[in-house]
């Protein structure tokens, strides 16, 4: 009836790789943040899957997922504020043009 835990791990790994690919290849800083959100969600899906398959009856896995979601929300808030600050300064959100610190 149920799918094995393997399937969820493969799905989460695939989603993580898609997010990583997007974060490393896209030029727009906002899409980089979108890709990082995808990676966060793949990780949280892993936490919930392990909770369901391994530690049913206790709530520890769900607690970890709650704190991961809260940290992801804080991260996206700060990230978008930084993107807006960078846009004010450079008039652009292309990550290739943010190279003031390049040696």
């Amino acid at each position, binding site marked *: 009836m149920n*799918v094995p835990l393997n399937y969820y*791990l493969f799905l989460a790994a*695939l989603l993580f790789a898609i997010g990583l690919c997007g974060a490393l290849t896209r*030029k727009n800083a*906002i899409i980089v943040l979108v890709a990082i959100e995808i990676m966060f*969600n793949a990780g949280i899906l892993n936490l919930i899957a392990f909770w369901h398959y391994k530690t049913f009856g206790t709530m520890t896995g769900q607690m970890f997922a*709650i704190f991961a979601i809260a940290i992801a929300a*804080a991260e996206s808030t700060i990230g978008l504020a930084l*993107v*807006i600050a960078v846009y004010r300064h450079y008039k652009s959100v292309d990550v290739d043009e943010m190279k003031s610190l390049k040696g």
Partner: protein
Amino acid sequence: MQIAFWIISVVTVLGAVLAVTLRNLVHCVLALILFFIGIAGHYFLLRADFFAAVQILIYVGAVAVLILFAIMLTRNVTGTEGPREVLGGKWWAGASTAAIIAGLLFVVIRRDQLASMLPAGEAKSSVAEIGKLLVADWVVPFEAMAVLLTAALIGAVVIALEEVMKRR
């Protein structure tokens, strides 16, 4: 159960792929919303009802709208750029890094013997129990998270308003 897993997985992966490949930024966020809803469906399948609701409220409701506002504040949405405009320099290095890491993850998951197990019993999850645990056993991380979220809120306002405050 199997068929539901496959349908929701296809929707989720499709949303993720479209979110990182589409050219129009608003379409990217719409695909991201599809991805978030797919993840919420997976949480329903895994009997984590509270997380399915939280996923829709926080991600679809708040994070997606936040990203849309950031797009509207930063650039005009044309969606008529060529491929050189969408991809950053040295994109092939990033793509091959992601492919190598995906291969490594797949190999490790395939080798893990424990990972193919099925749930040994019915998982139970209740919002009341989560609430009790948050103010009993997990109260210190809970308060730390409250401080973190307050700091993030104030920090976001300060970072975004920096130039305005300097001008005065």
